[in-house]
Structure formats: C-alpha cells, structure tokens
C-alpha cells in the first residue's frame, strides 16, 4: 500500500530523515542516507550512520515507533509512520545502494541549480559508513508537501 510514486521517491533522489521517541515521549532524529522499499510495498529498510544509532536503536527497542520523512527538492514530500522490525549493520550490498542514492541526490541538487561548492559537501559530506540498516513496516502514509493539504492521509 506504499504507492509507486512514494517508492520512487524513497529510492532517490529524496532527502530523508527518521524520527523516534523515548519512553518519556521525547523525540530524536537522524539523517537517513539511502533506503530500499521492498517488493511487498509495506516494508522499508533505511540506512543511518552508526554515529547516530545509539539513541535511535534505544528508542526503537523501547517502543518500536518510527516516522520516516521523505522530501524531494521540489518540496513534494511524504511521511511514513510504522513499526520497527529489525536492524543490522550495513553490508556491501547496502553500501552500493547508498552510493547510487548519493549520486542521484547530487545530480538532483545540481539540476536544481545549487552551485557545486554547496551541493557536493551538502550531499556527499555525510559520513554514511559504518552504517546501520533499520527495517520497519509502514502502517500510515501521509502527504507532506507544504500547503493546506499537508498531513493528508494517503492510505
């Protein structure tokens, strides 16, 4: 029930980040560098830098709730909320996906007329290895493109 359009966005070139919360309902976030929407159109695996994983994993293990924000440079945006399933360190296959993602994202920024001296460090400057792969099942999908319709449920 994740639409094709959202799958397309997840595979790049969208900027993504994930949000979690702890037992006191205090939120946390991390940059997400690459993701895969699985063929079941329900589960997603996203990749975060290991340097950020401690708090995120602690939250996920505590309550399993996660939100993934997906925004294209055009401001077209989606949010997927769901339930944590599993995590593991990223492997070579994951890193290959990440590198495709990074190159797509860089091209998108350059096409949108960001100068190279900004686009390159902005996109390529995030340390993404070593990384952690986090898999979750999406339960709700929302349109988040800015405007009066932001927050509309899609599924």
């Amino acid at each position, binding site marked *: 029930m994740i639409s094709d359009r959202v799958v397309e966005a997840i595979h790049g070139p969208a900027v993504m980040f994930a949000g979690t919360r702890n037992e006191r309902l205090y939120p946390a976030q991390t940059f997400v560098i690459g993701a895969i929407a699985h063929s079941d159109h329900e589960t997603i695996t996203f990749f975060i830098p290991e340097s950020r994983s401690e708090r995120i994993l602690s939250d996920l293990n505590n309550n399993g709730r996660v939100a993934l924000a997906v925004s294209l440079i055009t401001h077209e945006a989606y949010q997927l909320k769901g339930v944590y399933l599993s995590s593991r360190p990223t492997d070579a296959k994951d890193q290959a996906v990440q590198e495709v993602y990074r190159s797509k994202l860089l091209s998108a920024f350059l096409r949108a007329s960001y100068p190279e001296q900004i686009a390159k460090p902005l996109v390529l400057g995030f340390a993404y290895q070593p990384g952690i792969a986090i898999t979750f099942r999406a339960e709700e999908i929302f349109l988040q493109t800015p*405007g009066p319709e932001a927050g509309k449920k899609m599924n």
Partner: protein
Amino acid sequence: MAEEKNTAVEVKQQIAENQQIIDQLNRQLARKNNEVRIIQQISSEITSTLDLDRILETILNAMDRVLGFQHAMILLKDKSADKLTVAAGRGYEHTTIGAEVAFGHGVVGVVAERKKMMRIGNIGASVRYLMAVRANLQEVGQQDLSNTTAKLPSLPNIQSQLAMPLLVKDRLIGVLVVESAKPNAFDELDEILLTIVANQAATAIDNARMYQMVEQLSRLKRFFSPQLAELILIGGTEDPLKTHRREVTVVFLDLRGFTMFAEQVEPEEVMGVLRDYHAEMGRLILEHEGTLERFTGDGMMIFFNDPVVVPNPAERALRMALAMRERVQELSKKWRKRGYDLALGIGIAQGYATIGAIGFEGRWDYGAIGTVTNLAARLCGEAKGEQILVSLRVAGEVEDLIEVEEVGLLTLKGFHKSIPAFNVLGMKSNA
C-alpha cells in the same frame, strides 16, 4: 615527572588558545573602531552638502569602498503616493534608477510600509518553498492568487538583503538597501553599521529635498502666483516648465481706444490708468485662478487648465471675463470724467496648445502656442467695446450658464474658414 610534563604541555596549550582569543578580539575591535571612524567621516561629508545627487553618490560610494557593500540602492518615497522610486544604485549591471516599488511589495516595500528594518539571508530557499505552497494552493482551487511577474529592482540571483527605512522623526523618506547573491551575507554588525548610516542619510536627504523644493518654489514663483506655485509644488504634478500639450481655454483682452489715448495723454496719466487697470484685472485673474501668460500695455492673455488641471476651465474663463467687464465698466465711469474713452474687449477660445518655458537664459517666460491662442486673439480684436466674443466651442461648453447672441460668421486673419462667434450678454438667471 611525567605529570609535571603533562601540566607544562597543558599550560602551553592554554596560553596559545588564550592568545588566539585575544587576537580575535583585537581584530574585531579594530574592525569596529575602523568602521565607526569611517562612518563618522561619511556622516560629515553628507551633512555638509545640500546637493541630493551628491549625497546619494557619497553614501553608496562609501558603503562600497569602506564597508564592502558592493550592491546597494537608495529608494526615495514619492511625495504623495505610497510608493518608492530608485534614486541611486551601485553594483548593478543595468541601471535600476527610476524603477518603482509599491509599499508592501518585496522586502523594500514591506520595510517602507512598516518603517522597520529587515534582514533576510535565504531568499532563494524561501521563494522556492512558497512557490511549492502556491502550486499546492492552486491544485486545491485557491482563488485570487496574483501574478508573480511584477519585477522588483534587484540583483538577478539575489539571496540576501538588508533594508533600512530612512526616517526623520517618524516620517519615511525612503529605504536604503544592500544586497548579495550569497546566502546569509549580512549579520547583526551590518545591521548596526547600516542603522548609523541610515540615520545620517535620512536627515541629509530630507534637508536636500527640502532645499530642492524651496529652489523649485522660488523658480515657479517667477512665473506663477504664490498660491499657484505652491499648488504645483505640493500637487507633485510634472514640471510645468517642461514642454507639454494640453487643452486650455484662452482669454485675450485689451482696451478699445488705448492707442489713441496713449498718444494724446501725458505718460504719467497713462501709467496711472494702466496701474489701476492692471491691479483690478490682476486681482480677478488670481481670484479665478487663471494663468497670466503675458501682458503688454493694455493687452493680456490668460489661460485656464494649465499648469493646474481644473474640471471646468471654460466656466472659469467666462466668470472671470464677466467680472472683468463689470469692473472695467466701473473704471470707465471714472475715466470718462477725465475725458478718457476706454472700453474692454474680450475674446475667448478653447483648444489644444503647446505649453512650456519660452525664451532664453536669464529671461524665461511661461508661454502657450497654438491655433487656440490665435483664435482668442483675433476674437478679441473683433470685439467691440464691452463685448465678450466666444468661439462655438466655448459657447457649447457653457451654454447652460450664459445668455449669448449670435454675431455671425467672422473672417479672421490666419483662418481659412469663417468662424462663427457669439457675444456673451450675461449669466443666465438660474446659473
């Protein structure tokens, strides 16, 4: 022993870090001192002159040379309307001078409206974001989204702007703005520096503009009555001395029998008659707000609807002519007692004329040229004593107000066709 060595190393590191901090503070202090000194210099330069262009030039020059603001503009508020016009610019490929900005439009327009400064460093990102919102709104059927094509005078790839209102007491004189194609180009220190420049600039510009107005007023007073001169100045109309075309009602008048009178009578007495006559006619011209274009001895030309546009020029001309006739009739009684036989003749026509300053350096007059002036002059020439001859056009304009009698078709010098003319008998009783 190892511990001592560690402590020594730590102390050395600490001293080096402290030195770095002190150096940085010294640099900041030097920068501040330098800039304050130079701002004082700008201030003294601009407050010592009343030449508006020089003031604007000095400000922008100093802002570039000394403070590093390479792209800057000064906009001045329009005298009456809620808009600004670019008066000076620096660092722009194409001149922006003359470009207009309405209050509330863009950074400059909002600063003018609110009379508060604004600093923004993310124009590109903000515009992109709002355009996305706009597309979203269009999709859900939002009405009254206006066109985005109204261009603002700015750098092409503008990212940062710092705009300062120029205020004297609470009155807005204009806006000073610096721009950059880099995001986040300006900081709080820039705000402080620009505030100081803006305060000085506002006073200097205001004084220069006041001076300009006083100059213009005295220049206009040479051509027009004081009230008219002020009206022109305040009204913010186009410079009337610039050649322009307008439809005007023209009145010519002179005294029948004056030539013979001037030949036969002593010069002092002639001057005396003229003095009384001019005084009375002059008063009536002022009362009816006509423009006296010229007077030569007993002849006068007055027109209406220029330099100040009025809704009823023909009516004013008629009322003035009738008042003049009545006044001269009274003067005539006095003159007849002395044996002078003088009577007023008036001609009135309406049409387009070319109007502006006529003459040469040192001797300028405000003149009107066109068929209408010739027609009015000829009608005056044809008028017998105490007649007010008007053209068909004028008769039509005021037909509800006056009683006329047809005088027939006149053959006038300079006109191919015969001209129908009418003599004004008086106001209609219900007028």
